[in-house]
């Protein structure tokens, strides 16, 4: 063994390298205050290891990025832990960098002969921020997509070269496959290579100049890097690792939003917290001045920091630099706080955030469903999901007249009073029982806002049903079961099959006095006048689609239709959109394994 090592040393000289690396002389001895650089090196080691493994499972394309990240997060053994460590270590790295930078500023360690190393450090800061920016897009979720759009839009505002720069960054005019491949090449190739180069230069120069010894330590005995300083560095790195691990376990890992959708508004778009100050800062610049706020002023501030080694040569230069540093820090803290405070008191933002969380959760449920993610991708899966799309379509197309549990489907209460019935639970026994309740048919939840409040149905309920005897009420309950069974609601399947005999009785009662639905409604072969909507298949998918298609058609309201648009005939909604609304209202969607 020794012979082999001797041979290796003879050919490579590794012992000399190891010796100079490990037994570096530390004037004044090992200190806790010297650990920051080593914790950053450790953080980069963690990012490198976790990043390469994530790389082995990640797919950089518009139909595979979200999907592969979902797979890492939910299907791979320990994938959530791996991604969580990478995600939160990235954020801790930024904090460590700022602490390191602050220490260098306070100690005046940027002064001669360490100017170049200070600039290397600033370069590293810029590269790490670049890694954060590019990494934020890679999961291709709504959050990363829209936040990154802002960043590339800012790039496009650069005078003269802006549009070309944006097109190069985005890999075309629109976000797509090439945006991901290019961001990924930056994130996993170009930027890490730059970081490795700068870290080598940084450490080389640091070894050349040595630590900046604080005055009070000057008298202390000297030490060596190994093992005294290494022990302190290792303990600090362990604390960093434990902190990140605790955050990952506490949060359950990194969040994955709903798949990116360029056509779906996303009011909750915010950059990561460490860019939040820039986001807030941009609010203060009127149209046409964004480039000043996003590029010129931050560029000047960065330039001022870079000039610190030169400014520091003057008598009051160091104090001036400290003032600048403190002012920047205070500004960043204040802007971040302002952004947070504005968002937390903004009901629209909170609602948008809740909706985003709902979509994200739903995307996860659907991806894990037996049907899984279709070849067209997760976005297609979400677009054909009644539970996701139904409420949005309802809010846009139905809620100007109808309500859903009193709201517009998305939880907002429209300003105007409803002029049509509340469709939550439409087709169910409970809904019908309300319609046939003399006290409720005239309310806003049913016919209150419509012409039908003065129609024959309302009259029948308010006069006829109101005077029913107890046995007639029992019969009415069976009729309700029978009519509701026509809807074949998934949620009522068990009740419908349990009450087969009552439903059969109800069907007969529908044609007899005193209830006699068939006096005005068609039911099977029974009809006398055919005034109201057909009851055959009432509330079923086909019935509701027909109603949406053309409520003014004879089987439905005919000429009694009170203002409901013929969504299909007039092509206000596509067939798919009508199906999504109907399936959502009927509760006909995948509910998840726990249901």
């Amino acid at each position: 063994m020794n012979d082999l090592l001797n041979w290796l040393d003879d050919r490579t000289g590794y012992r000399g390298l190891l010796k100079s690396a490990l037994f570096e002389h530390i004037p004044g001895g090992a200190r806790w205050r010297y650990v920051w650089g080593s914790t950053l090196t450790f953080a980069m080691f963690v990012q490198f290891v976790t990043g390469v493994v994530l790389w082995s499972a990640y797919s950089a394309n518009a139909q595979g990025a979200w999907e592969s990240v979902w797979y890492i997060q939910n299907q791979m053994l320990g994938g959530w832990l791996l991604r969580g460590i990478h995600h939160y270590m990235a954020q801790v790295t930024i904090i460590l960098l700022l602490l390191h930078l602050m220490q260098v500023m306070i100690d005046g360690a940027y002064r001669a002969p360490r100017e170049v190393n200070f600039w290397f450090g600033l370069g590293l800061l810029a590269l790490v921020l670049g890694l954060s920016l590019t990494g934020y897009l890679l999961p291709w979720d709504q959050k990363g997509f829209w936040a990154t759009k802002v960043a590339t839009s800012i790039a496009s505002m650069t005078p003269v070269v802006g549009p070309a720069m944006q097109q190069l960054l985005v890999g075309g005019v629109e976000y797509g496959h090439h945006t991901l491949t290019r961001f990924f090449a930056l994130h996993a190739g170009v930027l890490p290579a730059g970081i490795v180069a700068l870290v080598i230069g940084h450490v080389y120069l640091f070894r050349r100049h040595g630590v900046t010894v604080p005055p009070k330590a000057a008298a202390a005995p000297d030490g060596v890097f190994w093992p005294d300083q290494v022990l302190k560095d290792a303990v600090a790195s362990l604390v960093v690792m434990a902190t990140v691990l605790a955050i990952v376990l506490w949060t359950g890992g990194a969040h994955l939003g709903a798949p990116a959708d360029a056509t779906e508004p996303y009011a909750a778009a915010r950059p990561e917290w460490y860019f939040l100050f820039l986001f807030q800062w941009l609010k203060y610049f009127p149209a046409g001045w964004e480039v000043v706020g996003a590029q010129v002023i931050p560029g000047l501030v960065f330039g001022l920091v870079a000039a610190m080694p030169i400014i520091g040569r003057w008598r009051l230069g160091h104090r001036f630099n400290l003032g600048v540093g403190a002012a920047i820090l205070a500004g960043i803290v204040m802007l971040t706080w302002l952004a947070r405070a504005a968002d937390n008191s903004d009901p629209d933002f909170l609602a948008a955030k809740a909706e985003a969380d709902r979509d994200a959760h739903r995307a996860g449920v659907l991806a894990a469903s037996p049907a899984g993610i279709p070849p067209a991708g997760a976005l297609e899966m979400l677009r054909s999901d009644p539970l996701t799309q139904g409420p949005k379509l309802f809010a846009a197309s139905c809620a100007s007249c109808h309500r859903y549990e009193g709201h517009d489907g998305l939880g907002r209460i429209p300003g105007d009073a409803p002029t049509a019935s509340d469709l939550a639970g439409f087709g169910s026994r409970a809904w019908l029982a309300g319609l046939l309740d003399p006290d409720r048919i005239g309310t806003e939840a049913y016919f209150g806002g419509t012409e039908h409040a003065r129609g024959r149905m309302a009259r029948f309920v308010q006069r006829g049903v109101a005077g029913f005897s107890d046995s007639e009420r029992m019969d009415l309950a069976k009729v309700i079961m029978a009519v509701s069974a026509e809807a074949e609601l998934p949620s009522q399947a068990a009740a419908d099959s349990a009450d087969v005999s009552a439903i059969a009785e109800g069907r007969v009662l529908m044609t007899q006095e005193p209830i006699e639905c068939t006096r005005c409604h068609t039911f099977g072969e029974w009809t006398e006048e055919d005034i109201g909507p057909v009851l055959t298949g009432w509330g079923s998918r086909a019935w509701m689609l027909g109603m949406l298609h053309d409520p003014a058609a004879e089987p439905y309201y005919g000429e009694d239709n009170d203002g409901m648009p013929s969504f299909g005939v007039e092509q206000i909604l596509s067939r798919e959109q009508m199906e999504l609304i109907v399936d959502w209202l009927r509760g006909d969607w995948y509910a998840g394994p726990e249901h």
Partner: protein
Amino acid sequence: MTDERPEQQKEPRRNFLVSMGAAMVGAVASIVPLAAGATALLDPLRRGREASGMVLVTRLSAVPEDGSPRKFTVESARVDGWTSHANTPVGAVYLRRSGNGVAALNVVCPHAGCFVGIAPDRSRFACPCHKSSFDFDGVINDPASPSPRDMDSLEVELRNGDEVWVRFQNFLPGREDKTAV
């Protein structure tokens, strides 16, 4: 390594403890990302093939009556990583009439996994990679053929008169026994 220590160390015992401590603490911190990474990297080992059911491949009328083989694509449901395919090509088989029924051979060469073709003179199966040679029953017909076993036959069922159903499977190449993957 011990002999490399600078001589000015006055407390070798303390130094040893500090060294051990530094190495151990450093190892504990480093093991976290390494273990998380290794676990995720080993994840594919957890994934087996789902039990292969019978798949409808074609109608009997599409299989040549003269007993010569014809290639058919096998389509089936497949989960590829995160993508669920309802019906997608998963492989190919040679079908040929034999007796009253149909015989099926997997097109993959048992030697090194190439796609076995039909020789230009249509007299035998010939692998384009390493010249494995099989007769139309899939049996090795050349002593120089490098394949360790005959072509892999698959279970076939005729249903409803003319439906050809095949239990599609792939097998480990390069070994004498036929082991499903």
